[in-house]
C-alpha cells in the first residue's frame, strides 16, 4: 500500500469549483498508483456559512454575555469539518470514485480531554486501512478527535485540536499510516520568501527544513502549523505544501540533514503588537524578583502570548498582541502589590505616563498605609515584529549590522530586537511593515532564493 495523505484547507473546499479542483488532485494521485487519504478543513474561511467562526457565532449570538461550555463549542465547530468531509466524499463519488467520510474519532484519532486544544495521544487507523483495502477513498474530518475517558461511557467525547488542527491531523495520519508523503493543499503555491502582499514576486521555496518552516510559522507566516511540521519531522515523513489551483510543484519540507548549508530562508511579520516596558528602578532589590515573577505569573494565568521578552537592569519588557492589550491594561493599571522584606513597600502599577482615575484613587487610599512606589509601564502602541529566518546564517559576523543598517538607511526606527539560532526579529512601527519586509527581502537577496 502506497498511502499519500492529502489535506485540503478551507479555500480548497470553499466552492463547488474548488472542490472539483481538489477532487481532481485526489483522483490524479489515485491514477498514479497512490492510495489517497483525504483530510479536509471546514468549508471556507471567516464569514463563510459553515466556517468555524460562523458556527461559533451561532452560539455567541444567543447571548454574548454567557460563555458557552468548551465541550459544546467543540461539538458545534466540529460540524464544519463534518459538512466538508461528507460533501467532499460525495463529490468524489459523483466523479466515479467511491469515497467514505469519517469523523476524527471514526478514523481512530484519540486525544486527551482538553476541549478546544486537545493533543493526539494515539491513532488506530484500522477503519481507514479497511477502507483503502476496499479501494474506497477515506475523507477524514481535520481538526478533531475523540477522548475516551475509560469510565465506561459509550462513544467518547468529541474534541478539537486547536489552531492549525487540520494540518496536524494530516501529519499525524501520515505517521500512523506510514504514508509515503503528506501534501498540504492551500491557496498559495508553497512556502514563500515573504508575504506576496508586500513582496509581489516573492519566490516559492523549493525546499526547506522542518525547523525553518516551524520557525517561519512561529514568527507569523501561517502557511503550515508548527505542530504538523514537528510530527512530520519526528516520523521523517516527506511533507509538501502545494496550491490546489496551480501546477507549481510546491515546497518540499525535509529533515535538515537532507538539506544542509547556510542560507537565508525568508522574511515574516506578525500582527499588531503593543510593547510594555516596566520601569522597576524604584523597586527595592529584594522586591524586584518578586515583582517580575508576579507580572509573568499574571500573564501566564490569563493566557497572554508574549513576544520580544526583555530583561534589563532597570526593568522588564514584552509585547502583547493588540487584541489582548485591553485585558492586559485592565489587569495592570491600578494593580497593587504589597511586599515585605528589608522594608515594607506597596507597589502601584500605572499604565502610561499619566495616572488614570483608578490609579489616582488607589494612590490616595494607599498613601496612609506606608511607602507607596509607583511602577510606570511605558507603552509603545502600533508596533509589529518583522523577522528574518535563516539556516546556519544568523551566527555569521555582520548579519545584525546588515539587517539594522538596512532599516536605519530607510529611517525605520527599531524599538527592540530579539534573536534565536534560526531568526532575527525587530520591533518596528506597524506603519513601516511593508517597507521593512521589502528592504530585508532585497538586502538579503531573497528573490534569488530557491
Amino acid at each position, binding site marked *: 500500500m502506497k498511502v499519500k495523505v492529502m489535506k485540503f484547507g478551507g479555500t480548497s473546499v470553499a466552492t463547488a469549483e474548488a472542490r472539483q479542483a481538489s477532487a481532481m488532485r485526489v483522483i490524479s494521485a489515485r491514477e498514479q498508483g497512490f492510495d489517497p487519504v483525504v483530510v479536509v478543513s471546514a468549508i471556507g474561511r471567516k464569514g463563510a456559512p459553515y466556517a468555524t467562526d460562523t458556527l461559533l457565532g451561532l452560539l455567541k449570538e444567543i447571548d454574548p454575555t454567557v460563555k458557552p461550555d468548551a465541550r459544546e463549542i467543540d461539538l458545534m465547530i466540529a460540524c464544519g469539518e463534518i459538512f466538508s468531509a461528507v460533501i467532499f466524499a460525495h463529490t468524489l463519488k459523483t466523479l466515479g470514485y467511491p469515497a467514505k467520510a469519517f469523523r476524527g474519532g471514526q478514523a481512530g484519532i484519540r486525544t486527551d480531554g482538553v476541549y478546544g486544544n486537545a493533543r493526539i495521544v494515539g491513532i488506530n487507523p484500522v477503519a481507514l486501512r479497511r477502507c483503502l483495502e476496499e479501494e474506497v477513498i477515506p475523507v477524514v474530518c481535520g481538526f478533531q478527535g475523540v477522548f475516551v475517558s475509560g469510565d465506561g461511557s459509550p462513544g467518547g467525547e468529541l474534541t478539537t485540536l486547536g489552531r492549525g488542527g487540520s494540518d496536524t491531523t494530516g501529519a499525524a495520519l501520515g505517521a500512523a499510516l506510514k504514508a509515503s508523503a503528506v501534501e498540504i493543499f492551500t491557496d498559495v503555491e508553497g512556502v514563500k520568501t515573504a508575504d506576496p502582499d508586500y513582496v509581489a514576486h516573492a519566490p516559492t521555496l523549493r525546499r526547506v527544513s522542518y525547523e525553518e518552516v516551524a520557525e517561519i510559522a512561529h514568527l507569523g507566516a501561517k502557511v503550515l502549523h508548527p505542530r504538523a511540521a514537528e510530527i512530520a519531522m519526528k516520523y521523517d515523513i516527506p511533507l509538501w505544501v502545494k496550491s490546489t489551483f496551480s501546477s507549481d510543484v510546491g515546497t518540499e519540507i525535509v529533515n535538515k540533514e537532507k538539506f544542509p548549508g547556510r542560507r537565508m530562508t525568508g522574511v515574516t511579520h506578525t500582527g499588531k503588537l503593543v510593547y510594555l516596558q516596566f520601569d522597576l528602578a524604584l523597586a527595592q532589590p529584594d522586591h524586584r524578583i518578586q515583582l517580575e515573577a508576579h507580572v*509573568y505569573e499574571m500573564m*501566564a494565568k*490569563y493566557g497572554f502570548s508574549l513576544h520580544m*521578552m526583555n*530583561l534589563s537592569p532597570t526593568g522588564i519588557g514584552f509585547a502583547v498582541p493588540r487584541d489582548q492589550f485591553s485585558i492586559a491594561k485592565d489587569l495592570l493599571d491600578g494593580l497593587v502589590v504589597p511586599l515585605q522584606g528589608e522594608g515594607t513597600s506597596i507597589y502601584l502599577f500605572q499604565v502610561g505616563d499619566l495616572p488614570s482615575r483608578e490609579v489616582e484613587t488607589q494612590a490616595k487610599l494607599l498613601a496612609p498605609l506606608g511607602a507607596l512606589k509607583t511602577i510606570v509601564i511605558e507603552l509603545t502602541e502600533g508596533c509589529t515584529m518583522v523577522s528574518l529566518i535563516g539556516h546556519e546564517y544568523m551566527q555569521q559576523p555582520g548579519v545584525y549590522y546588515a539587517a539594522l543598517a538596512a532599516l536605519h538607511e530607510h529611517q525605520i526606527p527599531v524599538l527592540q*530586537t530579539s534573536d534565536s539560532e534560526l531568526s532575527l526579529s525587530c520591533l518596528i512601527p506597524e506603519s513601516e511593515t511593508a517597507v521593512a519586509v521589502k528592504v530585508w527581502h532585497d538586502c538579503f537577496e531573497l528573490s534569488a532564493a530557491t
Partner: protein
Amino acid sequence: MDIRTGFAQVQVSDLEGDVSQERLHVLAILRDAGISLDFLKFTPTGLSFLISETEAPKVTAALTSAKGTHQIDRGRSVVLVHAVNMRDEEGLLAEVVSAAISSGAAIDHLGDMHDRLLIVTSAEGANLIKKTVIGQFLGGQA
C-alpha cells in the same frame, strides 16, 4: 532541558548623541573583527549581546575603538527549555519565565523559538533555573 556553557555577556553603554547610529557603529566594528554574536538587545544608552567566551579578548580589543564604555561578564550559560509549539499553550511561555525568575537566578536575557525558550544567566543561575523548572513542569524529571 539543556544547559550550554562557555559564553560571555557584553554590555556597551553610555553611547551619546544619535544612539541608533552609535549602535550601528559598534556592530560594524564587531563585524569587521569577524565576531559572531547572539541575544542582541538594545539598552537605553547602548546594547548588549552574548559571545563565545573564547572571543572575549578579541571583543575587548575591537571595542577599544568604539565610543562609550563596555563591560564583559564571563561564565555565562544558556538554559534551553524545550517545549514543542509553546505558543499553542496560552500563557506557557510566561509561566516558564515566571518560574525561572522565581528561582532567584539573575537573568541577563530571554529569547524564544518555535520549540524552546532560551535563558541567559550565570552557571550557578542555570542550575537553579533547571532545578526549579524541572520541579514545576516536569515532575522532577528532565
